[in-house]
């Protein structure tokens, strides 16, 4: 085979990695690459802002389980992508971000559109590279995909100088990737598994606390088997929603700051907390010294740094969640003294306590005949889509109401910025999700504040025929911040009132999309039905109760049992 250009080699390598869709925005430093892409089967989704490109690649990765790819130009193209990269990093989402760079001879000279993107993204990528030698180009890309998708997944950035991409090279044969300094521990240690299983058998009040790691390891089935065989109630983090069916009898819903009363009480009272693919985030634990004080803790995670970082763990298992859960399930299948029926009987008193909490303070809200309650909108969306739609969210009240009132029964159906809490994430993420699954219903649950952060992507959705549905819970406020001001700042609404908001129905029309509005409770269902029946992009503008709050709520720094209730 003869020599090909660097850009052709990159395209070939992307195809070798199974990439069919990328998200990008062109510019001077990546002209060669975009040119080479024109001769391939790969579709570039032309976004309207680079932040949108990375969020869209992120949404694509979250729903498909594949590596998302974004292609950005040098300088401002790359820096615009940083928020997206940090978002993916915090939520452990596998991405490969390709950025153009000025020619090697100009690096360090403050050239036009030059920025040290490798330096800038070092703390918010799993790893990053500046390719300096044309012979390293293809091996580096292969390594980037390998690192992004294995171990604890994450974004990997590859910076590509313009002259290097234009250089001819011999395309290297694919060889197995071996990085001596990167060897994630996939398989659980049998001694730890044995210890954990014995401890589980002794527990009288066990709780499974599961996070996004279960979803990224595709371990939902194994988790469900374990929970059901052992009759262990399950609570999920925001990132873990859908890893265990939310409408199942063992589900206690989400825990933490806006978690259910039941879940937070159960964690406080349990004698064994089994954390799987979760990282004891401050939004989950509240005041650390009061978190799960009566419990021993088993922690399954692929990332050793997550273990005993915030909360001291008694039995750590460093492994891929699926392998670890499989090992646990196999142990119980072999163990002669274990009987699922006896186990269920043994834990019956614990379930009675849990049922008592749920009866006392179920998740709820005060409905109204006239005014639209946001929770009612979410419940209606859930009902009319039979819970099968892919839901993305922006950040704030919209996100928390979605997490609370949409019962996620399937993994990879809830796409939300958990760790970084990035407003403007939902719409581009929905486009990414829709590109991965063109036939499925994708709904972005948004607020009137955050939708405006990446509203320009409506044009992308239209151009690439992504009929995403945007449900704006419009209260005229930056609602979550307003809620904190209401509770902790004497209702002084500093900079949270948005007096000027676009007419979202007219805005939709301006983009060639469909705009619908509901101002009363009665209009909610017809609007949703019409939106779901429309093949185009639809904005639903729900004029909701303006000062509705998200409850339960654990004030920052308080113990999770100190909840403010409805």
């Amino acid at each position, binding site marked *: 085979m003869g020599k090909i250009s660097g850009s052709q080699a990159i395209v070939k390598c992307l195809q070798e990695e199974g990439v069919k869709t990328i998200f990008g925005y062109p510019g001077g430093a990546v002209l060669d690459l975009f040119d080479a892409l024109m001769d391939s089967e790969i579709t570039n989704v032309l976004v309207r802002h680079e932040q949108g490109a990375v969020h869209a690649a992120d949404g694509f990765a979250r729903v498909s389980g594949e590596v998302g790819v974004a292609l950005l130009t040098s300088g401002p193209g790359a820096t615009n992508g940083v928020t997206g990269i940090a978002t993916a990093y915090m939520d452990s989402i596998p991405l490969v971000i390709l950025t153009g760079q000025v020619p090697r001879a100009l690096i360090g000279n403050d050239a036009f559109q030059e920025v040290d993107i490798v330096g800038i993204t070092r703390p918010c990528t799993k790893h990053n590279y500046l390719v300096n030698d044309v012979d390293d180009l293809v091996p580096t890309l292969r390594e980037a995909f390998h690192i992004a998708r294995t171990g604890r997944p994450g974004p990997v950035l590859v910076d590509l100088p313009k002259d290097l991409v234009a250089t001819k090279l011999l395309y290297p044969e694919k060889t197995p990737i071996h990085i001596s300094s990167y060897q994630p521990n996939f398989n659980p240690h049998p001694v730890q598994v044995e210890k954990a299983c014995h401890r589980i058998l002794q527990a009288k009040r066990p709780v499974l606390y599961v996070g996004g790691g279960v979803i990224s390891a595709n371990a939902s089935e194994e988790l469900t088997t374990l929970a059901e065989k052992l009759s262990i109630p399950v609570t999920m983090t925001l990132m873990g929603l859908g890893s265990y069916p939310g409408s199942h009898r063992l589900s206690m819903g989400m825990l933490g700051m806006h978690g259910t009363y039941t879940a937070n009480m159960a964690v406080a009272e349990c004698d064994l907390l089994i954390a799987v693919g979760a990282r004891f985030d401050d939004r989950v634990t509240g005041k650390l010294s009061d978190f799960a004080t009566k419990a021993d803790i088993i922690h399954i995670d692929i990332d050793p*740094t997550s273990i005993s970082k915030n909360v001291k763990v008694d039995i750590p298992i460093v492994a891929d969640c699926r392998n670890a859960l499989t090992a646990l399930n196999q142990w119980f299948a072999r163990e002669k003294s274990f009987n699922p029926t006896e186990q269920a009987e043994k834990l019956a008193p614990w379930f009675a306590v849990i049922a008592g909490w749920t009866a006392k303070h179920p998740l709820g809200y005060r409905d109204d005949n006239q005014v639209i309650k946001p929770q009612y909108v979410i419940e209606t969306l859930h009902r009319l889509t039979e819970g099968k739609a892919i839901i993305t969210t922006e950040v704030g009240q919209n996100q928390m109401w979605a997490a609370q009132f949409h019962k996620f029964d399937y993994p990879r159906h809830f796409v939300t910025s958990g760790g970084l809490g990035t407003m403007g994430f939902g719409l581009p993420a929905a486009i990414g999700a829709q590109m991965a699954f063109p036939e499925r219903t994708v709904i972005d649950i948004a607020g009137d504040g955050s939708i405006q952060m990446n509203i320009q992507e409506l044009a992308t959705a239209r151009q690439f025929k992504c009929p995403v549905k945007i449900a704006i819970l419009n209260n005229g406020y930056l609602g979550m911040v307003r809620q904190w001001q209401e509770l902790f700042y004497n209702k002084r609404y500093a900079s949270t009132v948005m007096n000027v908001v676009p007419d979202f129905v007219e805005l939709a029309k301006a983009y060639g999309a469909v705009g619908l509005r509901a101002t009363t409770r009665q209009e909610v269902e017809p609007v949703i039905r019409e939106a779901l029946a429309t093949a185009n992009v639809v904005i639903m503008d729900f004029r909701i109760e303006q000062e509705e709050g998200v409850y339960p709520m654990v004030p920052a720094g308080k113990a999770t049992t100190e909840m403010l209730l409805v």
Partner: protein
Amino acid sequence: MKHTFSVLLQNKPGVLSRVTGLFSGRGFNIESLCVAETLDPKVSCLTVVSRGDEAIIEQINKQLNKLIDVIKVSEINSKEYVEREMVLIRVKAEASTRAEVLRVVDIFRGKVVDVSAKSYAIELTGSDSKIQAVIDILRPIGIKEIVRTGTIAMARANKNK
């Protein structure tokens, strides 16, 4: 509690800033840091001295290991080890103190490496505590300038093997 980590790294551009960025980003402390190539030019060895309780030291160890370019992390303090630091000290040496300075240099097995009418520059190697002792003794005489390399360390060979 002071801890010394010996870290083997891929010898590539930017690797050092990954390590220092990790310390600053996570609020870990660096008391000293030394880095140079090993016998294998593709690998460099970094010695970093930090302080913290057990949980912090465990996190530092794990976080270092998590960096893709880190090959191996050893916590030197958990074993028998030797540690050395070199220091260059310019100390006032006028007629009344010249003899005293030379005596101190002799006692601590140092060397005079630069001489002027009013000062000596001294080279000295030793453990952190020895260096500190010399500084304490020379300070009243008048230290004009001091440059320290930071600690390097090596685990002792296993005597039974």
